[in-house]
């Protein structure tokens, strides 16, 4: 991405040529990868042309001007259908742009299209899309992770220079790990959620998926910052993330949580992450073992809070105002029932039911109420840890990309989020960067978790690690 912008400035390539090259590549390869649900060719070429004019008159808008990017199809785009990979919104065309979409457009970025996801971002494999599965560019028989699997696969297969995803329990970081790209989940409130179709409001955050750490920093810089449309957005100025990359990790205290290196973790993953920690030490960081005792409860808490909020957020899809309406209903209640029965997939229904149950009278205290209390404990765990260290390192996921259909048991799928969910519960920033390959040649993700609003330190450490290693040289072979 940043290389592309440099090339535009030098005049080696034009934004139009780049956009055309990406569109051609999508046409050639996406039939096999399945990253995109909608390709916005016309809009992309028009935006590229406008960017080209700005470069010609030596007035580009910044490092993203003319850069072709992809957006998870959970971000509202004015006039461009936004499906959330659900039948219920198959033909929904938003009348407004999400704040992040506005900000990227203002920065001159060129939208190539909307990428696939697990329906309403509920899943860890992008198999739960109502329209198509997305395949992992490193091994098409495997999943790209999820729910931002389309965005991760698009970046990994070079079907976009960068992308945006959303992360509720790991939905940026886990697919980034599975596809070997950089995926950044910012502090809760750092990026406006206005226009992000809500899954779990208190956990959702939008963030970048990128080829390298610098690109992630540039994308994050463009979308971060307070927004009057989002009351939960943090009213603090945004640091210059790209400028914060240099400086290394000398003197940085890194915590290694013992709960993240257990038997359930794939040996290849364990080995790669341990080696990565060694690299950080060689670069001048100090490490110490820490404990995050509530790690084991993360999944349980998450799978109460997220479905509870989802059951509420998804109540609006009822066939009355927009989206799908099932035919043949004999009365209103029947219309609601049929629309939602046909419109939602099995995983979404499962979570709506879980959530409605957790919130219902008589069960609230035992489930949702209790989960909120434990969530506070999870947050305190991190606060205690960050009193001793500046950064926490861990695997992003306990395993590498699995095969399509391999995890049909929902619980097995949920457990894939065990290392990513805590950062969402605590609302703190975390990134996944490539730190090696499994014996089978699949990428492995290293997760760096930071203090609230300390995106600069997370990015700086990730960048130092990336610069010191040569993992990025390997690329997936799609012919």
């Amino acid at each position: 991405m940043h290389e592309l912008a440099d090339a535009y400035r030098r005049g080696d390539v034009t934004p139009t040529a780049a956009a055309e090259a990406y569109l051609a590549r999508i046409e050639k390869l996406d039939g096999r990868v399945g990253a995109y649900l909608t390709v916005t060719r016309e809009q992309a070429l028009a935006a590229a042309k406008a960017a080209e004019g700005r470069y010609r008159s030596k007035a580009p808008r910044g490092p993203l001007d003319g850069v072709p990017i992809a957006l998870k199809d959970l971000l509202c785009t004015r006039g461009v259908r936004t499906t959330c990979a659900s039948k219920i919104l198959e033909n929904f065309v938003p009348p407004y742009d999400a704040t992040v979409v506005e900000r990227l457009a203002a920065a001159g970025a060129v939208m190539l299209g909307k990428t696939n996801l697990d329906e309403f971002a509920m899943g860890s494999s992008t198999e739960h899309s109502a329209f198509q599965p997305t395949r992992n560019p490193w091994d098409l028989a495997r999943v790209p992770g999820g729910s931002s699997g389309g965005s991760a696969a698009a970046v990994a297969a070079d079907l976009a220079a960068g992308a945006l995803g959303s992360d509720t329990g790991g939905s940026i970081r886990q697919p980034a790990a599975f596809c070997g790209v950089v995926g950044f989940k910012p502090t809760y409130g750092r990026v406006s959620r206005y226009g992000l179709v809500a899954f779990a409001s208190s956990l959702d955050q939008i963030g970048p998926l990128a080829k390298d750490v610098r690109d992630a920093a540039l994308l994050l810089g463009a979308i971060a910052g307070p927004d009057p449309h989002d009351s939960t957005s943090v009213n603090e100025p945004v640091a210059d993330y790209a400028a914060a990359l240099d400086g290394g990790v000398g003197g940085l205290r890194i915590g290694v949580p013992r709960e993240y290196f257990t038997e359930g973790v794939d040996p290849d993953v364990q080995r790669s992450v341990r080696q990565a920690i060694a690299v950080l030490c060689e670069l001048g960081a100090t490490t110490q073992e820490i404990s995050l005792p509530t790690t084991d409860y993360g999944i349980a808490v998450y799978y109460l809070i997220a479905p509870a909020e989802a059951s509420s957020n998804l109540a609006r899809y009822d066939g009355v105002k927009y989206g799908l309406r099932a035919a043949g209903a004999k009365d209103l209640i029947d219309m609601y029932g049929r629309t939602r029965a046909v419109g939602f997939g099995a995983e979404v229904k499962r979570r709506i039911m879980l959530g409605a149950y957790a919130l219902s009278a008589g069960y609230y205290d035992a489930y949702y109420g209790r989960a909120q209390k434990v969530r506070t404990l999870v947050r305190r765990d991190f606060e205690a840890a960050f009193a001793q260290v500046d950064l926490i390192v861990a695997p992003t996921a306990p395993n590498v990309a699995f095969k399509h259909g391999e995890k049909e048991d929902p619980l097995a799928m949920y457990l894939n989020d065990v290392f990513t969910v805590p950062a969402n519960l605590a609302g703190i920033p975390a990134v996944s960067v490539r730190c090696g390959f499994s014996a089978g040649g699949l990428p492995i993700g290293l997760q760096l978790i930071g203090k609230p609003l300390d995106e600069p330190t997370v990015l700086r450490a990730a960048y130092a690690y990336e610069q010191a290693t040569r993992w990025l040289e390997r690329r997936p072979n799609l012919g």
Partner: protein
Amino acid sequence: MSTAMKTDYEIVIGLEVHAQLLTLSKMFCGCPTTFGAEPNTQTCPICQGMPGVLPVINHRAVEFGVRAALVFNCRINPACRFARKHYYYPDMPKNFQISQYEEPLAEDGWLEIDRPDGSWRRIGIQRLHLEEDVGKLVHEGPLATAQASLVDFNRSGVPLMETVSRPDIRWRRIGIQRLHLEEDVGKLVHEGPLATAQASLVDFNRSGVPLMETVSRPDIRAPEEAAAYLRAFRAVLVYLGVCDGNMEEGSLRCDANISLRRRGATELGTKVEIKNMNSFRNVQRALEFEAERQSRALEAGERIVQETRLWDADRGLTRAMRSKEYAHDYRYFAEPDLVPLRLDRTWVEEIRRNLPELPRARRQRFVTQYGLPAYDADLLTQSRALAEYFEAAVREFPNAKVVSNWIMSELLRQLAADDERAIAASPISPARLAGLLRLIDDATISGKIAKAVFEKMFRSGEDAQTIVRREGLVQVADTAALEKMIDEVLAANPKPIEDYRQGKTAAAKALVGLVMKASGGKANPALVNQLLQEKLSRMRG
């Protein structure tokens, strides 16, 4: 009311009042709140519950809530939260309403009401909270017409949402089934299956308008007290400028809980909730009916069922709603899209300092300062605008009782209402009313002429002086002219003169009337009387 009930049972009533706040924009988005705009023209993605939208609190609505809470002597919570209340209904775009649940804006206050005997009672207020209003469901045409479309409905199933007629009128069309039971159940029950109505439309203009809900304690002991509470409540809100108080347009809505218990009992009886009462009178009538119904049931040894009943004003009775219509588990939880609302102490104190004089205080002042009867003071203080109109007029014409009489008998007869809007729109300003009254006072015109002038002022917007001068309405006080008029009347009416001569002094009164009539009401009545008496006594002598 039956005698059994009066003696044996005590009525216990609590009221829940929803007031639409007079903010310029909605509770959680920037859409305007104007009443009566074309359907769905005052909407945006937020109040239509589009995917991805987020609410932002309207701080003006919070300020209005604080004003009311202060006047109701509530404890204002330094931090409050919004919560989602879930239920499925087509007028609610998100299928949850953003309301307040565990941490409302304010709690534990009271409102004092006056009773007819001059005493007063304090009614406790349990809580006051803010929420958003829902959209509005409307029939597609009258039900009779809809029945004619029965075939269409059956063939096409639930009609698809669509845009009808003009592009600026975007009615949402949805299937009708149980939707209208609240308003129309009586009719529907008698007209057969609900499938006869073909479609319903939703107007989201009202969706998201700020509402303030106030829940009283069960301190009310009689239906007329409930009406008094509501009247006092409305007067306060109108005075504060936070609500226009219009019950028919739905700006003020009231639900009631009522139960009966044996006199002397300390435990509350089983309560029944009553909905669908759209005027003070209906609130009182519904509660009277329900008290009677419950007392009869209890007398007959029946058990009162806890339920929601609808008031049917046409038939004058309450009717049970089907349990499906209200049996909800609202699944409340804290609204995750909004952070807790913290109220700055100094801001609250600033609001307190700027509170206006309230109706009760003003009413008392009107009695002491102006010497008005309690009845006048009560009527004139029903709205702030009216009270201010009165005071402005008295400043120019310092005979308070005369001003009060003219406002009560003439002005209010001409105006559509006594609210802010109607008073502000009055073609007769306080100064002009005073001008008219001065003309009576200095005998330029008679009281009778003045009433006609008032009507002309109201219609034309001119001042009294202009009308009186142009139409030659100045009172005739010229003795020569009057004597000529009297002579003519006497010449034309020998009968009353004969009566008078025979000692019937009342005949003189009739003659005065005839002279007044001949003058077109312009003669000075006192002068006519004096001159006539002189002439008659001369005739007799």
